[in-house]
């Protein structure tokens, strides 16, 4: 597989040049943008495989970029990057359509790996995100969650998905998880993708509230 074409969107020039320098060998960084509007224009022009997107941008949240681009170019995939790790930020960009989320403290090798994974259509969760998801999908729903939902399958994680998330939260790589649970890396990926789908589509109250709060 050829190196994925990547656009960097972050308002810190220093961070962008750092990532570009570090990722330069692993991926093909084709463009950079520092705010929402320039980013939307740039992505529409370049149509990269993956957009590395900062959650916090001066002209609006990262999810504004995702929503604008997705409308015209659904094939572009987004990987969210943030220093904050606040659940509402993370959940909001994921629900807007990002294929994954990593913290800025991630190592270069892991970031490159995450970009490749997202380019291939898989999902990438940071350990914190895995913790949030476990929290949000607690099997005993809060009172707000008891109202009937349209698709209850989307509101529940399977036991296997829980196990995988737990190990991600403990800092395991996909390879280590596969070994720990005696399954293939491919299976781990499909579990994570299925969690991502539930995260994006579920009507669980916590998720919708996090997302709603963020848009206000």
């Amino acid at each position, binding site marked *: 597989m050829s190196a994925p074409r990547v656009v960097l969107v972050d308002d810190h020039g220093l961070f962008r040049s750092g990532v570009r320098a570090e990722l330069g060998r692993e991926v093909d960084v084709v463009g950079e943008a520092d705010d929402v509007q320039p980013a939307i224009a740039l992505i529409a022009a370049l149509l990269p495989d993956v957009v590395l997107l900062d959650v916090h941008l001066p002209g609006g949240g990262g999810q504004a970029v995702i929503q604008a681009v997705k409308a015209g170019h659904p094939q572009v995939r987004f990987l969210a990057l943030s220093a904050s790790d606040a*659940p509402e930020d993370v959940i909001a960009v994921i629900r807007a359509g990002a294929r994954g989320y990593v913290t800025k403290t991630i190592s270069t090798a892991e970031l490159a790996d995450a970009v490749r994974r997202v380019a291939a259509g898989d999902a990438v969760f940071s350990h914190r995100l895995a913790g949030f998801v476990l929290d949000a999908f*607690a099997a005993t729903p809060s009172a707000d969650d008891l109202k009937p939902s349209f698709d209850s399958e989307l509101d529940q994680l399977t036991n296997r998905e829980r196990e995988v998330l737990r190990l991600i939260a403990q*800092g395991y790589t996909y390879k280590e998880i596969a070994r720990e649970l005696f399954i293939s890396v491919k299976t781990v990926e499909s579990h994570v993708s299925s969690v991502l789908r539930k995260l994006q589509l579920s009507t669980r109250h916590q998720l919708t*509230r*996090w997302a709603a709060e963020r848009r206000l």
Partner: protein
Amino acid sequence: MSRIVRSGCLGHDGYVEHPTRWRRDPARFRHREGDGGPLRRDPADRLGGGVASGVAAWKGFNVTTVRIAFVLLTVVTTGGAVAAYVLAWLVIPAAGGGPSIGVKARSDSQGLGLAAGLASLLILVLLVAAALSDSWLINWAWPQVLSVAGLVLIWRNAPADEQATMRHLLQPLEAATGVTAGVATPHRRAVLRLTIAGLLLLGGVTWLFSVHGSIALLRPLGGVALVIVAIVLALGPWWLRIARELVLERQARVRAEERADIAARVHDSVLQTLALIQRRADDPAKVIQLARLQERELRSWLFEGRAPNELDADLTLAAGVRQIQQDVETRYGVPVEAVTVGDTKLDDNLSALLAAAREATINAAKWSGADVISLFAEVEPAEVLLVVRDRGQGFDPEAVPADRQGLAESVHGRMTRRGGTATVSTAVGEGTKVTLKMPIGASSPASPGGPGGHGGTGPPIKRGGRGGSSPRGKRAKT
């Protein structure tokens, strides 16, 4: 019950837990084959003292077969096998090494006296009972004189985890006789005891009448009663003293546990800081800062009754984990990635869990050489799971010197004293994973009057903006 399971772990190649475990412990591997290593009790697979599993491993039998054989033997020998089992428990050393309990018991003169006293009391009761009737029950009871004496010695001299087994086995009995304070109110216990005494008296009298048929034949009973009174007068004070010694013994045990707690705390705070000061001796500013920090901690512990690093009255588990993260990051300069799922109020047990986790994290920061440590806590309905994991150099659990208290006392001891478990998986070059589990909702079994005690575990609490803190069950579909 808990134990440290040593196993190869998280290796990048060939991670298969069980085979690795056997391979790492060749003595045990040989036992499974049954080609005649020395006979050792196997505390890892025990119901009572691990004698049956030991014998099974020794001869290569199935454990269940040995246990069934033992039950049959008990019936055939009218209880003799039970006494034999207790003796075997005393005499055969445990698989982990160390002398047998019997060897330790030899130097325990108080315990020997106690055993002799109880045995003599039991013999007396049996003599009287035998004089009154020739029941098969008494034949069954005789060997138990030996069992009781043996169990007393085991109780006093067994390692802590085996004591925990015995305590567990005795729990129903304690509840019935009301030994455990707080299970029933004093009033209810008295009623229970009087009822039992009344029933016994009624049963005894009915029995006597039915056996002897007439009151006239009860006359020898007067003599028996006199003998009993005489013996009670003669031996009574001795028995009283034994009873008092039992109480003192329990107090001493409580004191020993408190001392262990204090030792663990001093190790975590003062000794750690002293070690750090030695390492940073060339940086006066840092040394002063460390000394100040330690002084503050020590003062708040000694004069305000607050343990260093832990137990803020309204602290929650997640806040505690965050505190560990911050402290370790500032003191040791190693990033800690902490994830908590759900949250709950801290009680003594969970504070002990946090203290153990702190110790495991500090261990990882100091020795593993890993660039990052992950800390994962999850509140489940029945227990709290806490995992401390690094991808560092790992270690050989056999090679840790006995005076390095970190894992053994501060982590393992802390968890077991509160009814939790600690599992360490590590191997040289393969990182370390410490898994801690502490049950919630149950009061601590073994430490009355711990510092800062504030009742049982509170219900899981909700965090603002993140309602998903309630425990999860098995509702998920698969």
